[in-house]
């Protein structure tokens, strides 16, 4: 009898909890979707009701395709460069220089602390002047890259370099957390004992096991670069967010439609990445977006 009562109470409690959970879920969904739906409605509403003509205008606009493709290229280049630079570095530090990790932890937070405008002015200052100390500290790279024929000042390559710095916190945190979640040292030693060298161990043992972390890092870098406005504006490079801003000033309906298009594009990228991760065998790993922020 008592057991039956206990079960009934437990069921009631579960039902009550489930009810509260649902309310929170619905509230969060409303919070997230209302701005999107409003933008969507605003974007496709003309003076005489629903109007899809803005879509036609967008697709026929030469700047749309041009800026979108430039932003995609920048995002892709920044993502690849940051992951390719930072992943082996963190692996190396974890393996051989564990004492340096606290320093990397602090360094990786600097881009969060320094506003983009500071970085932009810093970069302009470094690459436009000819400071002897900077020339020496950069091992001759700054004078090489700030003069023809390799000049990168105010060009997309410099923007990519700046984006790599901006992406450092996401990439570092995400990949560091992944590397710490696997037994990096022991897996590496196991691989060495089986005849594998450092690079091959990194590529065939470590990389597949931190794949979810790399995807997270890539995803965050990609989406950050796709929406980055300040640096590209200061470097006078005509990217998609600048196009969006300009369009918004001329025609708010068109800007709203563009925002929706941009959102859909990002959503496709996110879904593609999720599917890519889920399909990998032997892993229960999930994308660790939380690790990055």
């Amino acid at each position, binding site marked *: 009898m008592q057991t039956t009562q206990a079960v009934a109470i437990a069921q009631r409690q579960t039902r009550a909890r489930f009810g509260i959970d649902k309310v929170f879920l619905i509230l969060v969904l409303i919070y997230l979707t209302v701005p999107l739906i409003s933008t969507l409605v605003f974007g496709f509403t003309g003076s005489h009701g629903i109007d899809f003509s803005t879509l036609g205008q967008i697709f026929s606009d030469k700047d749309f395709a041009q800026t979108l493709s430039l932003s995609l290229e920048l995002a892709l280049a920044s993502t690849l460069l940051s992951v390719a630079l930072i992943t082996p570095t963190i692996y190396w530090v974890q393996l051989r220089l564990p004492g340096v990790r606290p320093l990397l932890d602090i360094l990786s937070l600097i881009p969060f602390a320094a506003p983009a405008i500071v970085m932009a002015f810093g970069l302009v200052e470094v690459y436009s002047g000819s400071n002897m100390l900077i020339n020496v500290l950069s091992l001759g790279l700054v004078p090489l890259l700030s003069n023809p024929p390799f000049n990168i000042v105010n060009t997309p390559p410099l923007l990519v370099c700046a984006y790599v710095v901006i992406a450092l916190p996401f990439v570092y945190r995400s990949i560091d957390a992944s590397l710490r979640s696997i037994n990096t040292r022991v*897996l590496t030693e196991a691989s060495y004992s*089986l005849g594998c*060298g450092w690079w091959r161990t990194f590529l065939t043992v470590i990389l597949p096991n931190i794949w979810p972390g790399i995807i997270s890092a890539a995803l965050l870098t990609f989406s950050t670069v796709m929406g980055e406005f300040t640096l590209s504006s200061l470097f006078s490079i005509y990217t998609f967010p600048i196009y969006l801003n300009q369009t918004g000033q001329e025609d708010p309906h068109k800007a709203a439609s563009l925002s929706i298009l941009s959102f859909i594009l990002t959503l496709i990228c996110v879904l593609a990445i999720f599917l890519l991760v889920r399909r990998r065998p032997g892993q229960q790993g999930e994308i660790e977006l939380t690790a990055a922020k």
Partner: protein
Amino acid sequence: MAFLELTELTKSFGRVTAVDAVDLSIERGEFLTLLGPSGCGKTTILRMVAGFETPSAGNILLDGDDITTTPASKRAMGMVFQSYALFPHLTAAENIAFGMSIKRLPKERIKQRCAELLELVGLGEKDRSYPHQLSGGQQQRIALARALAIEPRVLLLDEPLSALDAKVRVSLRNEIRHIQQQLKITAIYVTHDQEEALAISDRIAVMSKGRIEQLDQPEEIYNNPRTVFAATFVGTSNRFNALVVAAAEGRCRVEQQELHVPPLTNIRDGASVLVMVRPEEVNVQKEGALPNSGANQIAGTIILRTFLGPFTRFHVHVNDETTLTADVPSQYARELYVAEPVVLSFAADACQVLPTDSSIKEAEKITESEKV
């Protein structure tokens, strides 16, 4: 020359010397265990042999070749880790095949050898399982197969059973020994578990503070420990700090009690010694029972009785400072209870006498003066 030779092998981490000028020779096909408490340097030696640590001094010779500075990936040493270290993204069969594919063996050969090794470790049907789908014991079996797949010159095992439960530990250690003997492979095994070491090894190196205290066969280590550390670390023992009264007659004194030990040759009268008796050598009889044949008799009271299956362990309170342990076959322990006054007895031959540090120095001095 032995198959694997470590000469004056030393490893320091800053000011700490983890391994202190260790000399060790291991024969081909031998199963050698490095036994000692944590921090004694046993794992560091194994890691230096594997190539994961560079020695601060000394050499490692394998089959006559100096491999001290050879990278780990070129040493062909199969390693089994405490944490299994299976590659999580690969199946059991792929893990085993990993080393062979690095060696670029033909695919057919790899497939055949994988199947053989899976059968050898008794996991023929688990070839497609991922590590997270296997139990700890199964993972360690796969790790063993993976290490054997590269046909290692030496198999290195770093506390491979520590993470497993007691039952699996015993069965897997027997399997490891069986496979090692079957394949006649040279193996170095690191453990802090004395029972494991005694059960599995051809020889045991008992280690303390970066040095080898005693290198011997398991029986010798247990029955004739050469140092106080080896005597206290391996097995359970009753220990008495005694003074030698008459060395030639084998008489010592512990407080007011006289102890009969085997005649002592290298120790002088008046030297302080450690007398050690294994619990299984101690008989327990009720007070007032028939006189016991043991040369040494000590009266006491049972304070704890622990039934351990084939034998029962008694903790007997002798005086305020001394509690002795006796293991009695369980069929003779039925009528002995807690709080009962008893007499403990043991033969003189059952006693092992070891000079304590001061008496070692004294013995060295005597030897020196005799030489002069």
